[in-house]
């Protein structure tokens, strides 16, 4: 896969010239198409792992909340 305006090497007579184009000055190149892909197809184990991750994150968030309340002195003893 190459850029439309990939840095080029020109032969002009006996001399070599190299052209360099800044990415922001270059013509837009065709990227991989992501528009029509939709959600990723996953195996059952990946789907299960992501569910476990979701539960883990919710649990950890609750722990953080508990920890912050503790630091704030809501439970009195700490």
């Amino acid at each position: 896969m190459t850029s439309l305006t990939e840095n080029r090497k020109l032969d002009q007579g006996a001399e070599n010239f190299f052209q360099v184009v800044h990415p922001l000055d270059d013509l837009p190149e065709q990227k991989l198409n992501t528009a029509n892909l939709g959600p990723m197809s996953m195996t059952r184990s990946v789907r299960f792992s992501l569910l476990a991750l979701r539960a883990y994150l919710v649990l950890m968030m609750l722990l953080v909340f508990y920890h912050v309340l503790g630091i704030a002195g809501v439970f009195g003893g700490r």
Partner: protein
Amino acid sequence: MNTILTNITAGEATPQVRMRVVRTKWAHSLLTFLMVCGPGLIVMEADNDAGAVSTYIQAGAQYGSSLLWLLVLLLPIAYFIQEMVVRLGIATGEGHAAMIYKRFGKWWGRFSLVDLQLVNFLTLVTEFAAIHLAFRTMCIPPQIGVPMAAIALIVLVVTGSYLRWERTVIFLCLLDLAWLFLAFRLRPPMAEIARGAAWPSLPAGGLTAGLVFLVIAIVGTTIAPWQLFFQQSCVADKRLRFSDLKWARLDTLIGACFTIVVAACMMLAGNASRANGLHFTDPAQLAADLGAVAGPAVRAGILLLMINAAVLGTTAISLSSAWAYGEVRGWPHSLQMPMREAPGFYAVYIGCIAAAAAIVLIPGAPLQLIIVSVQVLAGIMLPSAIIFLQLLLNDKELLGQEFCNKPWNNRVNWTIIVLLFVLSLVLAAQVVLPNLFPAG
């Protein structure tokens, strides 16, 4: 070297392309690298933000140079993670938040976005808290210094030129070279440094709660979730091309090496305070104490570099928030656009900075609570963020064979993920069971 404008035919259009002409191969390579360089260096150096300055200096003040090996270990980890982001950004031309939304659906998209915005905002408050602290130590009223810093950070971005922003930020990154001068000025013990960097070992005192927390903080501050979002969006905004991939990798590698060297110098500054029998409370206090021992240049240097670190962190983190929000909401989101063309994108950036600056000016704001929450939340978010990255980089439907992870990439990355999860679980265990490790 000549600069010329030329017409390049692309279908029916014949737009003008500005290019530079050089005569030698090495000049061509060097110039191409200089043009591509930026996102990697910035993301890595901005990671040495105010929180990182505090963490590394504290590590040096408490444990000397005996944790330098951890930084050496974190160098390849930081590079491998960010390299994946570069590949994804160049291949798709889109940001990380957009990719998660598209490939994992709305729940994960919203969760990642909300979590990112929350952690980013809390981190921004800590950046401004550091600016507040540094100005106060320099006897400059924070009520003037903090708003001035906020205004400068906003002006830096709203000019509608990616290049202007990038060049200014690279200049600020290079100012961090002064950490090397400071570390050298503080006469570091070379033999001890070499031993601490090359030989992984526990500091005297063994495994204590304080050490565990500091190790997790060092890992969390060296590899942060916002970096994934920032670099991919930055690569997309800079419109890096497929042919730029090798130079973008080099940019990331140089950035990783630079950030680790600077982090080590911060640890050595902390080590100098330990060697002089000074007690560490915060980096600004340490600067004042070291100034009495090593001269006013060291004092002013550490305080100014602390502000520089906070400024770098603030612009990068706010941009990662603004890019992510713009991508998910479908708003125009580019530093190349003037404010009137991307109002939502700039509003998020300005809103984050203004609100964070305002919070630190409120007398009695719970800053300590915010700092602890940032560290814990970032520690929780990081492993899951990297799992998504890993899944995206194995998505052959999206990336094809060319840009997908190779088997060795996956082995390295899963090892990193397992390590981060273990640290995340240790952090959770320490929250639930505060006496799990001996106090120290």
